[in-house]
């Protein structure tokens, strides 16, 4: 089974990537390529919606961390939502994910993003 990636750029400062299937050695390069395209838009945050992601390997983790690192450098954030238990476990083992970047539901995530936008507007004022 392969990886599916759906990019949603309807809310400009944010880029949502919905992942499905398996993110492993063979599919990770495709995600990295897609992420590079997304980063070119200089978003405030990149959101990974992992609702349909069934499996993630260390190669997949690396692709996520790489995105995170790039966003940190640009003062942005990588946020994750709808993480399935099997995937959650892998992230837990590696323990390299800041707790505040993982959301249990879309509502929580949207609240956070609203707050983030307000904050950005205030800074720009």
């Amino acid at each position, binding site marked *: 089974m392969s990886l599916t990636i759906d990019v949603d750029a309807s809310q400009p400062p944010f880029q949502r990537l919905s992942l499905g299937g398996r993110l492993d*050695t063979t599919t990770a390069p495709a995600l990295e390529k897609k992420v590079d395209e997304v980063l070119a838009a200089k978003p405030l945050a990149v959101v990974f919606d992992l609702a349909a992601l069934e499996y993630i390997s*260390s*190669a997949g983790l*690396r692709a996520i*961390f790489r995105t995170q*690192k790039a966003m940190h450098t640009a003062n942005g954030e990588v946020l994750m939502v709808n993480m399935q238990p099997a995937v959650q476990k892998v992230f837990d*083992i*590696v*323990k*390299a994910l800041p707790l505040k970047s993982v959301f249990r539901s879309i509502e929580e995530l949207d609240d956070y993003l609203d707050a983030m936008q307000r904050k950005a507007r205030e800074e720009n004022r």
Partner: protein
Amino acid sequence: MRLNLRGKILAYVALPVVLILGGAELYRVLQLYDGLKQARIRDETERATREASELDARLREVARIAKDTAMFLELNPGIERARLFDLVRNNVRADPLVYGAAIAFSPSATPDGRRFAPYASRTADGGLRTMDIGSQGYDYTAPQWQWWHRPLERRGGAWTDAYLDEGAGNIMMATFSAPFPQQGVPLGVVTVDVALPNLRKQVFDVEAEQHKMFVIGADERMVFAHDSADIGTPLEAIAQKLGRPDILELGRRMLRMAPRGAGHTAARGWDSPQQEEQLMFYAQVESPKWVLGLRVDESAVFGAAHAQLRRAAFAISAALFVIIVGLVSVTRRVTEPIARLDAAARRVAAGDMAVALPAEGDDEIARLSRTFTDMARALVEREQALVAETAAREKIETELALAKELQRSMLPPSEAHDAAFGRYDVAAALEPARAVGGDFFDYVVTADGRLIFVVADVSDKGVPAALFMVRAHTLMRSLAPRLASPSELLAAMNDALCADNERCMFVTLVCGALELASGRLALASAGHEPCLRVRRDGALVWLDVDNGPALGLIEATPYPLAEHRLEPGDALILYTDGITEAFDAQKRAFGRERLEAAARDQAQAAALELCAGVFASVRSFVAGAEQSDDITLLVVRWHGARA
């Protein structure tokens, strides 16, 4: 029968055409030949008919002389005897065909009651002599003399059969005699003789060498024959003389058939040494009821037809030969390129790619030839590309094999034990998913009596993982002896690995330090799988470690230290997720439960057996499914301070 393409064209197209054409032509010629033969037979039959009617006409002329005289005598009964001699002389002179003439009286009709028959005949010197044959003892009323009896019996003129005239001239002759009556009573007969040998010059002026003429009388005697000696001879005698009974049969058949019309029959000839087959054309000579025959060699009759047949046969053969030669050469022209293609295809199949087929024109075969040549060329190119590709791949594989060997040589032996005191033994197994991998293990005994051991798993697999593994392993080797605890080692490694790590490669790693004298164990983990403690009695304990993040991701992170105390005989199993996430063909993972079961089975075994047992369990679970990740297993067993 197996035919090649050309053979098939010839057999299924050319042969039927030749046969039909040849057959039709042959039929036409045979029809023509048959027509010619029929025409020739008609010609010859007509000739025989003509000859027969000419002979008949002459004989009628001769007979007319006798009939006229008989009429005269009937009208002039009292004629003087001397006048009668004049009459017979005149009768001989009347026609060159007449040899002799007579007026024979019945003895009962003469005044003296004696035979009286004035007779005139030709002499050898061309003159005439006259006599009374009745007075010379010639009893013409004797039964053998047909010329006397036949007209009287028939009450009209009649021809005799051929007979030998012994009285006058000793010559074979036939006589016509006409009766002359007086008041209904026949007084005598008037005769005219025809010397049969004279017929040749008198009638048959046309007789040619090829047309042997003969005439058969009703008494089956030869009235006329090509050979004068045979004239008057019975057919039976001739047949006997020649030893050919069929000649008699032949004559009889002609006598039987002729009254119904002219015709022909066939027989083997008898007067030439070859005895060639002859055709006999016959026709009735009406007045004397003779049969006239013409014997002609078959070759003479049909010679022209035969010649024409031969010419036609030659023409047909020549035409067919030309057609066949044409077809053969045309089929060769058509099939030769196919044969060349066939040969070329065989050569290509045998591995000889250097084929170039001549292809003139733009028909299907020429296009096929060009395509084939192009195909062979493409095949050569493809093969060369394949060879080059294979060479390149072999080079990479060789390099990978060398790299694998090198990587393996960086790791300590897969089995070790405490030779001096027997306090521990160690066993390890490592199986990369690809030629090289990112897993590694290590162990070392420090100067202060600690066994430090490590199992690590670099993110991803293959060459990138291997390169990062070398970096991490080298780092660990250089740092481990100098640092007091696993926490410090992990923190130091993490800081070093975070630097210059754009691709976010990371390592999960678990490190233990076992005081060999006391069994005190210090553990630290960077995002790695937990360790399993296997007690001698088979009890299993997952050792709690407060995990830090994987190495290489987050700088300046502390790694908590967990402390445990081992009982003598306890074993520790450290592994990478290649073990728990080994998938079988149904994509089921090996999991911790199966690991526990495998460990329990070998709870009391030496480190080597325990390691091998777990590894074999994983192997049999996977059972040939593709290995998805590097697999590493390290087993440490502590036997106590002193074994």
